[in-house]
């Protein structure tokens, strides 16, 4: 089902992948585990023969979630809750929910209470990463997830089984990275929206099948430099709805690097394959890029963004702020100052799942790039 998709079909599917997931599940007789982002080791879920699906909001209207999470909760959390409460809940046999901030901590409680008959487990990622205890705890949590899934399914996984899931997921990430690298140099070969749709869909469908599509798409890419593109770095957690990417395409911005959980932070999560798989998953967690809720060091975020900007010779940094994400909101003023001091043009886009006004974003974005060209920044 997902093994022979064209770029166009991928973009179409990314809008709403759930009907195709339903069909696939029915055909294959598989079970589905949903996870909110970030950092759930999906390879473990796959090794138990489930389809791991990342939940990254819905554009369908909010109906039930507002009665559980008020309007000052981040829109990603509300959107995800709505997705399962009103639309796709029955598709999932269980959920593994990471906790990284106050919102996600509550979200997993609300979720569990709403679905008393489904398997719900939380993934308590450490909210510090610089001390030895963080590594210790990440390992404990991955092992706890394995034993929780094992108790629930009454099955065990072997190192070999986990390693082969890791290999499959690594292949997916490598293919995505190759396409990304190609796009950097050939901005007219595929759009930002297409590239990020490939990544997003990778987080939601069966990789064994989808890798085949990726390979075909990759092999079919023709060098096309195009003209008039401005290279940018995209920073943040997620970037939704996909129309935001279309906006970048419209004004000929070329994303050459990013720090998104639904972007490079995901693709970079290739896991070493030559040792104990759990240790390798822990290494991956410890080495991942900056993520506002679990890293206490905005300097690190600044350094990462600066390096991406310089290495890629980008012209500006666009930061995607998810409305009401307090983690980002505590970081942003300092990050902004650090980048400004460094002379790096920086533009913040306030986004919201469900209620985004694109025309407003477009006007501000255009104004930013016009002033950039005029040298006013």
């Amino acid at each position, binding site marked *: 089902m997902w093994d022979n998709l064209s770029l166009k079909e991928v973009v179409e599917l990314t809008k709403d992948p759930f009907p195709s997931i339903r069909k696939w599940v029915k055909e294959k007789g598989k079970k589905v585990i949903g996870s909110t982002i970030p950092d759930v080791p999906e390879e473990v879920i796959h090794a138990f023969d489930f389809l791991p699906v990342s939940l990254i909001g819905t554009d369908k209207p909010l109906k039930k979630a507002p009665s559980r999470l008020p309007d000052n909760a981040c829109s990603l959390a509300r959107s995800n809750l709505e997705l399962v409460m009103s639309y796709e809940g029955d598709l999932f046999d269980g959920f593994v929910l990471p906790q990284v901030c*106050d919102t996600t901590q509550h979200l997993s409680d*609300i979720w569990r209470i709403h679905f008393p008959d489904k398997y719900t487990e939380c993934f308590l990622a*450490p*909210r510090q990463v610089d001390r030895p205890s963080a590594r210790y705890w990440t390992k404990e949590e991955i092992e706890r997830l394995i034993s929780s899934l094992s108790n629930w399914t009454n099955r065990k996984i072997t190192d070999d089984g986990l390693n082969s899931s890791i290999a499959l997921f690594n292949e997916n990430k490598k293919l995505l990275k190759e396409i990304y690298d190609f796009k950097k140099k050939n901005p007219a070969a595929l759009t930002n929206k297409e590239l990020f749709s490939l990544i997003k869909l990778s987080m939601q469908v069966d990789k064994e099948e989808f890798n085949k599509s990726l390979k075909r798409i990759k092999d079919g890419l023709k060098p096309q430099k195009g003209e008039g593109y401005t290279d940018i770095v995209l920073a943040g957690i997620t970037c939704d709805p996909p129309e935001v990417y279309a906006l970048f395409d419209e004004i000929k911005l070329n994303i050459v690097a990013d720090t998104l959980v639904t972007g490079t932070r995901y693709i970079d999560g290739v896991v070493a394959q030559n040792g104990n798989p759990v240790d390798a998953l822990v290494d991956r967690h410890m080495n991942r890029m900056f993520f506002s809720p679990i890293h206490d060091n905005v300097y690190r975020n600044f350094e990462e963004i600066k390096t991406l900007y310089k290495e890629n010779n980008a012209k500006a940094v666009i930061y995607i702020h998810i409305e009401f994400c*307090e983690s980002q909101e505590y970081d942003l003023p*300092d990050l902004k100052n650090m980048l400004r001091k460094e002379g790096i043009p920086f533009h913040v886009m306030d986004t919201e799942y469900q209620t985004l006004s694109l025309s407003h974003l477009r006007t501000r974005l255009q104004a930013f790039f016009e002033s950039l060209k005029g040298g006013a920044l």
Partner: protein
Amino acid sequence: MSDTQKTEKPKKELTKSQMLSKKITEDYMNEAFRAHELGKLIGYTTAISPVEIFVAHDIIPIYPENHAVANLTAKKGAQLCSVTESLGYTSHLCAYARSDLGYRETGITVTRGIPEPDLFLACNAQCFTLTKWFQVLARRGNLPVFVFDTPEYIMDKKAREEIIKYCVIQLKELISFLEEVTKKKFDYDRLNEVMKYSAESSRLYKKFLDMAQYKPSPISIFDALIGMAIAVYRRGTPECVEYYRTLCEEFQEKADKGIGVLPKDKEKYRLYWENLPVWFKFSDHAKLLGSYGGVILTSLYVHAWSFEFDLDKDPLVTLAENYVSRFSNSTLEDRAEMAMDLFKRYSLNGMIMFMNRSCKAVSFAVPTLKDVLVKRTGIPALVFESDMGDQRFYSETQIRTRIEAYFETLDRLQAKVA
């Protein structure tokens, strides 16, 4: 503020506990302002954090939250918060953090302010906001922050054992961190001594809160909010024990004499309050509720400091067990259990559920918690949304109308039962 106070009617004579509280607070702040002179460091910490380790290592703990409460209670919230917003922070962050950042920008405060920090300890059992807020402050002075990460105390027994282990490892890391910063060896005997004081004052603090069992109750949540201050910033010291002993004696005497916040025949509704108070309105709320025969007796918030330290255990283990299991770090199911315990023990017959825009950590559980509690107790709930410290999010008429309507409902129900 002191000018207006001068023109007010003569002050009531202070009780023994009030005098003690005043003295303890003054001594504490005097020492804090002279910390460097005394060769001590100032550690900013979160109200729920294993401060016993600071006390045992002669680090003077300072709680920016407490300072924020003083300013918010004195209605400085909107002014200070706006200053912070002009720096690029959004208006929906916690009003403690916003008013604190505003204070640092302007120096405006109704107290003498608080000393500048040397280091930070952020424990996320309370919330995640504090970690981020402290990081903002730390960046300004390039100061060290230690995050004591307390994963949610989920209900699985085995997971809990693991969580405690993780927390104990971190407490050891905290001790090494302090040794490194202060170049001084940590004294475990001193910690044992501090734990004795902390255990005893926590036991007495709980006893004080439990005065709400009496009918009429000699204590309202407003007494508890004032009474909790010393538990927050002075636990681990002998003066803290003395304070709570005195406080318990005073309230026990009231209980023995049948003196209630409201007289026995007027105490109709014994209420549960969910969340932190609306600081700049709390005495107004007390009066308004009192006029309907309602008195708020308790909340899980004030109980957050009634620790039950087990002195027979390794101090790091009992510290970890207590801090990780606070209501704010417990599952919604456990939190409902904790509230139900208060409903039963204090014979509560009403509940006010405050959705506090400032405090996501406490408030996002409220809609679900309300449903669970209403279902389990059969008591209707009043839910209202506002902010604990930023007056711009407070609508007087709306809240008054809601409170009035709620009491009408309770009256109707009571009449039906009668």
